[in-house]
């Protein structure tokens, strides 16, 4: 069991409230997943600039003068924002690959990168994880979150969701995949590699690889129904929005709500209880083996 939440805001003036709304949803899903929690938040873009979110178990030492060191390495301006064990580094888009190689060589864990996306995830109760990263204070256009009850791999930062396998793309998952080892090998043959032993990361890599091959988000999500075996309710985030798909058996729960102001996703209706105007919202259960997505 795990908990998934997602929120896509239709009105720009609501953007400052995204973190606050999403945090309540995430905390409500604690009893579906008390092991670890994570969130991917989209917003705060600077044209021509890319953001890389990194994690370290020894943040004080690891993040001290990290921006200066990276600046010297890539010969470009770098800014750093540190939140607990995570740091978001911003730099010119063209320097991304060199920056990631440098950061990995320093032993930092890459959570994700993109023009819009920042990822924060840690082991611990969702309430504590949210407080550590000050998720409530974050603004943005949309975000997805996950509370984890581990089944397929260890309870570690790298095993927590969301998983990002391409710029601005990430995936959260409730369920378990049974052909992930086979799919991991297939993807590796194509040159697509994962960073953890986790089944969901393979799902994320599958979707990214399909998109890299030219598929639309909708086509990539439809592909999961044929190519991934197991139980899943997936929510995938992209720079422009998010998509939802459930396996054909659909035993993992999912509910959606839409008003003029937002589209919300959750494992259970409970997570919607504090959303404004939920009483009058259109609330429905996404159909099995059917792809839904919202994009701005």
């Amino acid at each position, binding site marked *: 069991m795990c908990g998934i939440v997602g929120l896509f805001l239709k009105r720009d003036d609501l953007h400052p409230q995204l973190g606050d709304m999403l945090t309540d949803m995430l905390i409500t899903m604690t009893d579906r997943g008390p092991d670890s929690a994570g969130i991917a938040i989209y917003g705060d873009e600077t044209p021509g600039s890319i953001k890389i979110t990194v994690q370290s178990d020894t943040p004080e030492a690891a993040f001290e003068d990290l921006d200066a060191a990276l600046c010297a390495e890539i010969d470009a301006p770098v800014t750093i924002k540190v939140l607990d064990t995570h740091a978001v580094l911003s730099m010119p888009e063209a320097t991304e690959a060199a920056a990631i190689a440098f950061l990995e060589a320093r032993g930092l864990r890459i959570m994700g990168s993109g023009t819009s996306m920042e990822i924060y995830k840690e082991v611990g109760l969702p309430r504590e994880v949210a407080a550590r990263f000050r998720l409530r204070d974050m603004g943005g256009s949309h975000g997805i979150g996950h509370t984890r009850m581990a089944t397929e791999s260890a309870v570690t930062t790298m095993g927590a969701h969301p998983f990002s396998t391409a710029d601005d793309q990430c995936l959260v998952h409730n369920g378990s995949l049974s052909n992930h080892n086979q799919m991991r090998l297939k993807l590796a043959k194509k040159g697509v590699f994962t960073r953890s032993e986790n089944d969901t990361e393979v799902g994320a890599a599958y979707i990214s690889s399909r998109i890299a091959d030219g598929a639309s988000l909708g086509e990539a999500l439809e592909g999961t129904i044929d190519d991934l075996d197991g139980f899943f309710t997936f929510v995938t985030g992209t720079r422009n929005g998010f998509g939802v798909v459930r396996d054909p058996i659909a035993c993992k729960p999912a509910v959606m709500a839409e008003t003029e102001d937002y589209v919300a996703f959750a494992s259970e209706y409970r997570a919607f209880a504090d959303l404004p105007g939920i009483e009058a919202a259109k*609330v429905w259960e996404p159909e*099995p083996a059917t792809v839904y997505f919202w994009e701005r």
Partner: protein
Amino acid sequence: MSTTLNMTEINLREVNSTLQDAAKAQANAAYVIENPRGSHAVACGLDGPLTVTVKGSTGYYCAGMNKEAAITVEGSAGPGVAENMMSGVVTIEGDASQYAGATGHGGLLNIKGNASSRCGISMKGIDIVVHGNIGHMSAFMAQKGNLVVLGDAGDALGDSLYEARLFVRGTVKSLGADCIEKEMRPEHIALLTELLEKAGADAKPEEFKRYGSARKLYNFNIDHADAY
């Protein structure tokens, strides 16, 4: 006169024990539950006559194991609503999630919206009326009782069905193993008339098709004995 229990002030355990005590008192009292906020197991295990109105949507296992009580959810219900119901009436004004009315022995589950997958799985005598559509694998291994659907049914309706009767007005995406369409005889029209009336459903019994068990899975097929 009804008593209001507000779930922002009273916790679930206290709400349920208040309702369970009131049901046992056999006084047919009326209760209103406010702010259920999608909580699990609201109004569960009521063993006696009682009227409960839930003002909002509920989570997993609402109205489970109900006996004699009349419970109305003025919203949608999460997975497993009215699971193993024995008698009474459970009404859902909105939609019901998966396995609504699972293993129910008796009473009426009246769903005004849609029900998702596995509706009436292993039902054992309950009557379920769904005013909208139902999802896949509904009435799987259903043993007894009636499932009435005013809308459409998803894949594998009535798979491995025993003696439950299934009535569907709309289309059936596919029938499960050993489930077949059957003739609507006068006694079925009479039964359906009664069920539709009880559920306040605006539909003509003649518009429905009946599905039931072909009874081919009941016994070991001797023709296959060599295969084992």
